[in-house]
């Protein structure tokens, strides 16, 4: 295994650590809890590791809970897992003071597994809302029956976060959970002395469907239906990550044609996702013609998708081992002929927007996440790339055939609303080009290889339209899911959103929100 000499030295000089190569790419380090902070710091500072996700497992035959801390090295594409065993109800040292991106993960693990993290300042009311959910019941624990609501109830008291702003006349202005015309549910409390937003408290998980819990005990086949549907605007990306996990477990290699067509669908989804974000950005600044033009593009892409594969959102296109159906020559030609026109419309829209100074005024220097913050929070996807973080799993941890056909990664430095808009446009253009390249060299052949169901576990990933998504799957030999972890870009990026709001004017909240383009469904799961 090609890990750095320093890391080898760390491993050999520390008798408390043992390790194991799960695969050529994946190094698993069994780590005693007390070593966790040091090792994490080492990985971050010396190896420039990126945090992928954190997950807890409670395996039937084991007394302890297992916590997997998953990292990857963007330079070499290695996965590094720190694996820690902990007694239920016990405490682990928090790593979120080093890896700030793990902050929400630790809060989630407390809420759902009752795992405490020493040194973590905000455990409590997070996924499970205290007004609604009875205290002391940890729904992800094995003994909890996920099929029905527990009999006990929550406190019933309305949630009130600590007020940070003490000056006279300061108010807390709530937005949500039901707000605006067609918005996703969530609650945002803006603390303001009048004009300027000083602090934002985000309360999500109004849409918590307990997907990771209800997946347990279902068949791996049902798991795919869930993976496609928990965040349907990125259905293909999440479905693909899930299929890759099953394919790893079954040692199945999808045929090249299937791999390339998967890339075609994934890039189409990215363009449509970004166009929908652009429509929302235009709409938030009351630029109705621009919004209408962007929505026209979204609708035409949805129709194109339905023509290609029967479904406007790519549901039911994937199957473990490849694709359910091939694209025939007609479909490929339709795609080939329609895409350039859509690209032209996107470019024209971008140009018109660039010429609208009143529009630019509203998104420039708005909702800024500077590069330091972006790094601290480990944001992913277009948000990261708009803040100077040069990271994209298609290139840093290639899957499918991205290793051979790595797309360009557009990079902006400012981290404001305008930078994000530019990234959305640039990525759409790059995706169009990538699809046309893929179509030009599409190999013939089958679109499916058999994918046997086996006992095992795997970590798979996809650069979803909104950023890196990591799916962990463990299943039994009969194809029943024992653990499905969805480490989504929404969960990662919402965490940083509060930082971009502070100091903004009150009326800019919806605009900033639109330029972030975050999915609540993807966060809440």
């Amino acid at each position, binding site marked *: 295994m090609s890990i750095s000499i320093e890391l080898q030295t760390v491993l050999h000089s520390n008798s408390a650590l043992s390790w194991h190569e799960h695969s050529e790419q994946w190094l698993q380090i069994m780590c005693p809890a007390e070593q966790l902070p040091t090792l994490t710091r080492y990985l971050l500072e010396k190896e420039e590791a990126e945090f992928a996700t954190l997950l807890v497992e409670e395996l039937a035959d084991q007394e302890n809970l297992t916590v997997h801390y998953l990292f990857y090295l963007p330079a070499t594409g290695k996965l590094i897992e720190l694996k820690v065993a902990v007694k239920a109800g016990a405490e682990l040292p928090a790593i979120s003071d080093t890896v700030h991106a793990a902050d929400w993960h630790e809060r989630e693990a407390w809420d759902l597994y009752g795992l405490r993290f020493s040194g973590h300042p905000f455990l409590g009311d997070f996924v499970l809302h205290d007004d609604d959910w009875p205290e002391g019941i940890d729904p992800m624990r094995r003994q909890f029956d996920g099929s*029905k609501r527990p009999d006990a109830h929550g406190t019933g008291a309305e949630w009130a976060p600590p007020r940070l702003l003490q000056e006279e006349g300061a108010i807390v202005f709530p937005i949500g959970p*039901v707000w605006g015309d067609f918005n996703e549910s969530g609650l945002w409390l803006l603390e303001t002395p009048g004009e300027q937003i000083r602090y934002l408290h985000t309360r999500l998980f109004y*849409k*918590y469907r307990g997907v990771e819990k209800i997946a347990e005990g279902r068949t791996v086949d049902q798991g795919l239906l869930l993976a496609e549907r928990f965040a*349907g605007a990125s259905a293909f990306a999440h479905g693909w990550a899930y299929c890759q996990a099953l394919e790893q477990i079954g040692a199945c290699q999808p045929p090249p044609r299937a791999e390339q067509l998967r890339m075609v669908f994934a890039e189409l989804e990215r363009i449509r996702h970004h166009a929908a974000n652009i429509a929302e950005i235009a709409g938030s600044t009351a630029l109705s013609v621009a919004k209408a033009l962007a929505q*026209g593009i979204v609708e035409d892409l949805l129709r194109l998708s339905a*023509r290609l594969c029967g479904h406007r959102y790519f549901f039911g296109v994937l199957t473990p081992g490849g694709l359910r159906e091939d694209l025939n020559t007609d479909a490929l030609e339709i795609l080939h002929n329609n895409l350039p026109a859509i690209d032209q419309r996107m470019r024209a829209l971008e140009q018109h927007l660039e010429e609208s100074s009143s529009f630019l005024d509203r998104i420039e220097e708005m909702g800024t996440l500077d590069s330091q913050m972006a790094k601290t929070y480990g944001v992913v996807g277009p948000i990261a790339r708009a803040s100077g973080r040069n990271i994209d799993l298609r290139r840093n941890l290639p899957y499918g055939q991205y290793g051979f056909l790595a797309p360009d990664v557009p990079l902006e430095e400012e981290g404001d609303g305008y930078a994000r808009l530019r990234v959305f446009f640039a990525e759409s253009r790059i995706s169009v080009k990538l699809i046309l390249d893929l179509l030009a060299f599409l190999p013939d052949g089958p679109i499916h290889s058999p994918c046997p169901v086996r006992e095992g576990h795997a970590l798979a990933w996809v650069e979803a339209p909104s950023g890196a998504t990591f799916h962990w799957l463990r299943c039994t030999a009969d194809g029943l899911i024992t653990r499905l972890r969805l480490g989504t870009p929404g969960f990662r990026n919402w965490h940083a959103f509060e930082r971009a709001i502070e100091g903004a004017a009150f009326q800019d909240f919806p605009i900033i929100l639109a330029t972030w383009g975050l999915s609540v*469904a993807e966060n809440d799961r």
Partner: protein
Amino acid sequence: MSFWPYYGLKRGISTTSWPDGEEDSVGITPGRPRATQSLHPEESAAQCPTQALRVVKQQETSEHGVAVDFSRCIHCQRCRTGSHALPWSRDFAWGASTASAQPVLGSRFSASLHVLYIDAGACGACVNEVRLVDAPPYNLHRLGIFVTATPRNADVLLVAGPITDAMRTAILKAYAAMPAPKRVMGMGTCAINGGIFGESFACAGGLEKIIPVDLWLPGCPPPPLAIIHGLLSLVGRVAPASLEEQP
């Protein structure tokens, strides 16, 4: 100087003429399976992961067929192709009255219907489709249907998603605050029975578990024109469809 009006005009009118005219543009709907006579109904029905397909055997004629329960269909497309495929329609008139539906709202509302949308755990697909009803290709306003953000102005409560627990209170409050006469529409298979998420510790698994519902709109997701069909059928401007189809 703003050229936006010009850019808009240049694009031309893209709005559908439905319901006055026909609409069959490709891709406007995913379509859905049709009930059918079949020599191998068991094989066809077995493809469905959600038991939306049922084998029907007629005693007298010994003819066999497959019935479709749209309230369970999650558009997985498994019955669309292959040797046991069912025929698929390309329609979108999917809104279906519930068993407890109140009478249609009638002409007083036919040019002024106000809708409040609540997201109760919908995935991005239902959210995106509902956003598009307002877009030029569909243009809800031309039909005298308006979206409102407050329950006090709302005639119709439109709910999507499997009814997550944390959204129960908001739905109950909004429903109570709406003036009579009011109607409720559950959108997407999730709203009908929880869809792929079902009933669980986190979801009620169906809007009817918490408030009375007048109209179900099956589909995963129902496309924009299906949403419009549902709203128009609440007023009585178009005929509702059925939630089941027999061979």
